[in-house]
């Protein structure tokens, strides 16, 4: 263990570290895409809500994000399977990539390496496979971000410096984007940091729904088969991942807050 030997998987009869590391890229790409969608969606909704504060639009957005929030990613995944797998089958609901595509990459970061190598058929296929599981993972977090950020934006928009910006001729949208957003983002960032580890935890079940070949799917198989060395390896990897994420969040917090940067 201490020498980095994680043993051999009982069911798959291969070294655990090799198995686990081969699956990690799939889960990382999925989580990062989900995070990107959650942040983009959440920030957009918060900005629109703050821009239209006090109107029916804001109330509508609040109600929607409240409803979205009370439904977990597991259910969203299944809803998407029905919507885009059966009712309007535009996206693939199983796997990570079209099996017809020949991938001879050096890493398992299909999307990332595909972009670097200019293999856009690979990128297109992985993205269309990732979109639904990523959206399912992203929706609850997006709603959370939208609620918190809008709240903070509305508080910042009462500050004198935003009033001053309005007097200087900036439009309300530009006041929100240029003056308010950066100050309102700090508490949101803390939330995103904590919730990102939860989002990665959610990949376990969402990968299962979409038969996505990631760590989570492997974890469930390992649990069902009581493959203890494999379970151990996956748990350690997840733990390491969470520690790294927490470090990154702390780092970006310092970058965004000038007061901390200058000590």
């Amino acid at each position, binding site marked *: 263990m201490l020498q980095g030997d994680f043993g051999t998987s009982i069911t798959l009869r291969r070294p655990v570290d090799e198995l686990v590391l081969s699956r990690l890229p799939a889960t990382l790409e999925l989580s990062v895409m989900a995070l990107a969608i959650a942040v983009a969606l959440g920030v957009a909704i918060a900005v629109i809500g703050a821009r239209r504060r006090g109107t029916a639009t804001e109330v509508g957005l609040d109600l929607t994000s409240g409803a979205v929030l009370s439904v977990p990613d597991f259910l969203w995944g299944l809803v998407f399977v029905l919507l885009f797998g059966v009712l309007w089958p535009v996206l693939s609901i199983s796997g990570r990539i079209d099996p017809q595509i020949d991938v001879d990459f050096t890493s398992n970061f299909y999307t990332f390496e595909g972009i670097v190598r200019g293999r856009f058929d690979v990128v297109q296929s992985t993205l269309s496979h990732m979109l639904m599981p990523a959206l399912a993972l992203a929706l609850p977090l997006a709603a959370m971000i939208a609620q918190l950020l809008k709240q903070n934006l509305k508080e910042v928009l009462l500050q004198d410096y935003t009033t001053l910006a309005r007097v200087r001729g900036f439009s309300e949208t530009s006041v929100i984007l240029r003056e308010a957003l950066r100050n309102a983002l700090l508490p949101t960032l803390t939330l995103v940091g904590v919730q990102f580890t939860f989002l990665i935890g959610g990949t376990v*079940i969402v990968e299962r729904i979409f038969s996505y070949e990631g760590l989570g799917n492997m974890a469930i198989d390992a649990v069902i088969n009581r493959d203890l060395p494999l379970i151990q390896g996956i748990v350690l990897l997840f733990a390491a991942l969470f520690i790294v994420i927490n470090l990154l969040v702390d780092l970006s917090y310092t970058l965004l807050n000038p007061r901390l940067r200058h000590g």
Partner: protein
Amino acid sequence: MADITAAAPRRRARRLNLRLWLPLLWLGAVALAAIFAPLVAPQDPLMQDLMLERLPPAFMDGSEPGYWLGTDSLGRDVLSRMIHGARIALFVSLVAATATCLFGAALGLVAGYFGGWWDRVISRLVDIWMAFPPVLFAVLLVAVIGTGLTSVIAAIALIDWTRFARVIRAETMVQARMDYVDSARIGGARRLTTLISEILPNVLPSIIALLMLEMGIAVIVEAILSFVNLSISSDDPTWGSMIAEGRNAIHFAWWVLLFPLIALFLTVLSFSTLGEGLKQRFDPVLQ
């Protein structure tokens, strides 16, 4: 002027009522179906009939009378399995949420009222616990303690007690500073008596609201664990195992996924709406 001020609370009360009654109506229906499952269910939920496999629901061509919501890949009646599945869903949600509540609320009360060393240990434990993503935690716990309904319930209680402990601790701390607590103590009441007879009744509304939310969470966790085949054996009808089956047969029999999913969706939404509604009603800050 007078008209406006009089109309506002009336409108608010009506909206509150709707948010209260719709979830209660659905949950009541589910509860009745669960209690009287053998009487209500049109078919035997376990009976397989290969002649009747993948029958569509009654409103579609090729359906059979008596199989209202169609059948699954083994010819089992979807509606009957859903009705029997409601038994397991409600049983788990009741038992698991109550266990979670007793465990978490007790720790929260102790931490909030006794403070000091108790508080430090419990709060630190809550912090550590909440750093783990719950779903991953649940899967791992089941891996350790084994599959089955008891371990599902144990897993829920072991993971989610922090939700109660955190909130109840904070509320207890607020209550403990109130004058009535002092006067009870001055009157000679013992600390434990004061905690149970003076503080507990005042934090009870929050406990009930949290209990509602927790029941919704328990339903979901049970569904997730039976979806990945880590709950009770897959022959037994649970909403989660039906959903797993429906997911596999998605291209041949979508109804096997759709109907249990709707049931699960409405149940979860009902519990959380009730919980949120109660929370807002009792929250002194929001009033």
